[in-house]
């Protein structure tokens, strides 16, 4: 049978699935059948395209048509118009938010132009539930190459020379970690894939596992060969049901094909993988806590050293790597370290996946070469700030990271430059803020998260962060003093220096970096008792402008707490002590007499 001439790639990632992409795929299949085109066009369920917000996505190959927000009802039109008559359905085509122009070919989308997909190479391209599509795209050839023609040392050397660093947050050199695990004495060793991904808004690892689970399986086996481990464990959060299902299916298929199990590629090497489920505590992503959790203990971090590479799961040498780190491995083996080395900056090689969120036009999942600037990511790939508002800041590195401002827009994204600027790479969360965001409130939001997620084992983190949170709350309520700023700085530094694990050590980062970059906003709250962005409710005052008020009483009748007084046809007044800032009077007044300060 001839190969299909049209491939209709329908996104089956969590985002698109939740808006009926599966039913859509079924409808497309039915329509194709009805047209008698089963041998001509094929419907493929893929992983995430990174464009979830505009999902469900359907991409049509070979003409690179990118349909967004496609509903099951659209299936008929797509097949009749596009597949049969070769006419694109314009109303479903992606429209550039800046130019308002329809994009005919997805290669013309700003969103994709500066991206470089290595870890995400197969996401949105292959059917993750079909191992044959992975094999067709060079899958398992890196494992085959390593097992049949390389020694563990040679393989580790390739990873070292490639310059790959851990994508889970700390950026530790991956090859070196593999070498340490290899050299740690012990007949039994473990490979662990950290798929706990707990940063708010982050879904990099989930998308890789949903869109290309075999790349992680293949890399874990390569790691087993290099370190001398024959058991792999994936620690994955139970809230990722689709990723778990796809991973299970992939492991099963790999076993059927003899790519997991005994004597892989006819060699002595054997390897298999099992899953362990996390309950979703952020701190369980920290590697020592993760290992304790897998052992059945409490998910609390312990002091390092000893590092897991020396003494990890069940006391045995354990190599822990992040999902994205693993997903990059097979490509490096196949294409060579020399190739990988040309991508990125001097000390940060390769690409990094980010989850773009917040006030940008194109929110989604992106993969970019290291060294790209924040400006390129936010204003080109991200398509700039929503609704033509002004850019204010960007939080990088999740709750452990820092908040940078327009001053930093030309900072290249690499491990060192981000730290020097006061943020960090972290696992790849990137939240963009505009002029409407109050930075004191943003700092409080991230601290909220860490206070909630602190395991409580050590005092600086458990108590210190809570005190910082109280100080911030008091500032947003208008009760802050000048000394509070110094207190925040001192306390923050003590917490950073004395907490046991990185959760505590990094928790004050958003607060401190926002103090560095947006001190004027803190000061406005403290001295002027004003929230410049109008977010902190406690600092807002509803007032009635005498000249405009005609005494219609509409506001007084709308006020749920009776804070407005005044006779009919006379000027009304709001009692600030009673007002709960609900805004009802503002909505009701037809004479623009109610204002907010």
């Amino acid at each position, binding site marked *: 049978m*001839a*190969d*299909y*001439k*049209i*491939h209709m*790639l329908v996104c089956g990632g969590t985002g698109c699935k939740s808006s009926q992409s599966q039913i859509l795929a079924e409808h497309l299949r039915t329509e194709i059948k009805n047209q008698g085109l089963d041998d*001509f066009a094929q419907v493929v369920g893929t992983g995430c395209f990174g464009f979830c917000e505009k999902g469900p996505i359907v991409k049509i*190959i*070979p*003409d*690179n048509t990118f349909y967004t927000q496609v509903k099951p009802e659209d299936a008929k039109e797509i097949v009749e118009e596009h*597949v*049969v*008559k*070769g*006419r*694109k359905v*314009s109303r479903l085509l992606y429209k550039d938010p800046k130019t308002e122009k329809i994009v*005919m070919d997805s*290669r013309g989308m700003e969103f994709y132009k500066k991206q470089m997909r290595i870890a995400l190479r197969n996401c949105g*391209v*292959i059917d993750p539930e079909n191992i*044959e*599509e992975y*094999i*067709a*795209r*060079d899958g*398992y*050839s890196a494992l*085959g*190459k390593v097992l*049949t023609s390389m020694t563990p040392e040679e393989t580790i050397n390739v990873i070292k020379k490639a310059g790959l660093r851990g994508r889970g947050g700390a950026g530790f050199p991956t090859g070196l970690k593999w070498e340490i695990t290899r050299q740690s004495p012990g007949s039994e060793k473990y490979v662990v894939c950290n798929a706990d991904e707990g940063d708010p808004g982050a879904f990099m690892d989930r998308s890789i596992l949903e869109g290309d689970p075999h790349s992680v399986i293949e890399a874990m086996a390569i790691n087993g060969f290099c370190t001398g481990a024959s058991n792999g464990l994936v620690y994955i959060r139970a809230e990722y049901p689709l990723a778990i299902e796809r991973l299970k299916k992939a492991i099963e298929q790999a076993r*059927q*094909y*003899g*790519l997991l199990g005994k004597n892989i*590629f*006819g060699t002595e090497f054997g390897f298999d993988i099992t899953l362990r489920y996390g309950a979703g505590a952020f701190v369980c992503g920290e590697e020592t806590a993760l290992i304790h959790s897998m052992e059945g203990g409490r998910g609390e971090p312990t002091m390092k050293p000893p590092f897991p590479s020396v003494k990890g799961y069940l006391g045995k040498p354990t190599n822990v790597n992040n999902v994205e780190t693993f997903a990059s491995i097979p490509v490096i083996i196949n294409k060579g370290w020399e190739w990988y080395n040309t991508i990125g900056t001097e000390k940060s090689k390769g690409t990094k996946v980010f989850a773009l969120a917040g006030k940008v036009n194109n929110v989604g999942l992106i993969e970019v070469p290291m060294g790209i600037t924040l400006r390129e990511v936010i204003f080109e790939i991200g398509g700039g700030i929503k609704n033509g508002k002004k850019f204010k800041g960007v939080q990088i590195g999740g709750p452990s990271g820092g908040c940078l401002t327009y001053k930093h827009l030309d900072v290249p994204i690499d491990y060192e430059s981000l730290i020097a600027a006061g943020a960090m790479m972290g696992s790849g969360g990137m939240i963009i803020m505009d002029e409407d965001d109050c930075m004191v409130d943003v700092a409080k939001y991230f601290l909220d998260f860490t206070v909630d997620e602190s395991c409580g084992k050590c005092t600086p983190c458990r108590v210190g962060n809570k005190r910082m949170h109280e100080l911030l709350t008091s500032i947003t309520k208008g009760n802050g003093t000048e000394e509070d700023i110094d207190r925040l700085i001192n306390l923050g530094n003590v917490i950073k220096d004395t907490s046991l694990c990185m959760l505590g050590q990094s928790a004050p980062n958003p607060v401190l970096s926002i103090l560095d970059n947006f001190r004027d906003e803190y000061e406005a709250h403290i001295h002027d008792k004003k929230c410049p962005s109008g977010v902190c409710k406690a600092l807002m005052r509803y007032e009635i402008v005498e000249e405009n008020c005609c005494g219609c009483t509409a506001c007084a009748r709308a006020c749920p707490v009776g804070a407005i007084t005044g006779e009919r046809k006379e000027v009304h007044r709001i009692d600030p002590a009673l007002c709960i800032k609900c805004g009802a009077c503002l909505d009701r007044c037809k004479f623009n007499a109610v204002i907010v300060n």
Partner: protein
Amino acid sequence: MDKIKNLADLRNLKDKLQSKTKLREKSEVPEQMIQVKVAMATCCIASGSRETMNYIVDELDKRNIDAVVTQTGCMGYCYAEPTVEVTLPGKEPVVFGYVDARKADEIIEKYIKAGTLVEGIIPVNYQKIENN
């Protein structure tokens, strides 16, 4: 399913499967592909364009020619149906009329393979067929 027992097994399997996903890679550089568009509006189908299309698809495969074949709407040359547009990499598209199996064979052998023009081109004020 047979297990993959060695590297040769994997390579063989990959060779067998490769063509199934190749189109997705090729679509990243359509300029470098041979593109064939067969007009498939109602009237064309009546005049045998579906048979022409199937013939072209099968023959390109048989003769190991890497090309992208798509259907398109009415090209406006109904008098010359079935019509077929061929775009060779780096060249302007060319439309052929009255393409039956014999003509298709000639187009594949002479124009697609060797780049020499064959009779039956629809010339006058031809404008590139856009997909929109």
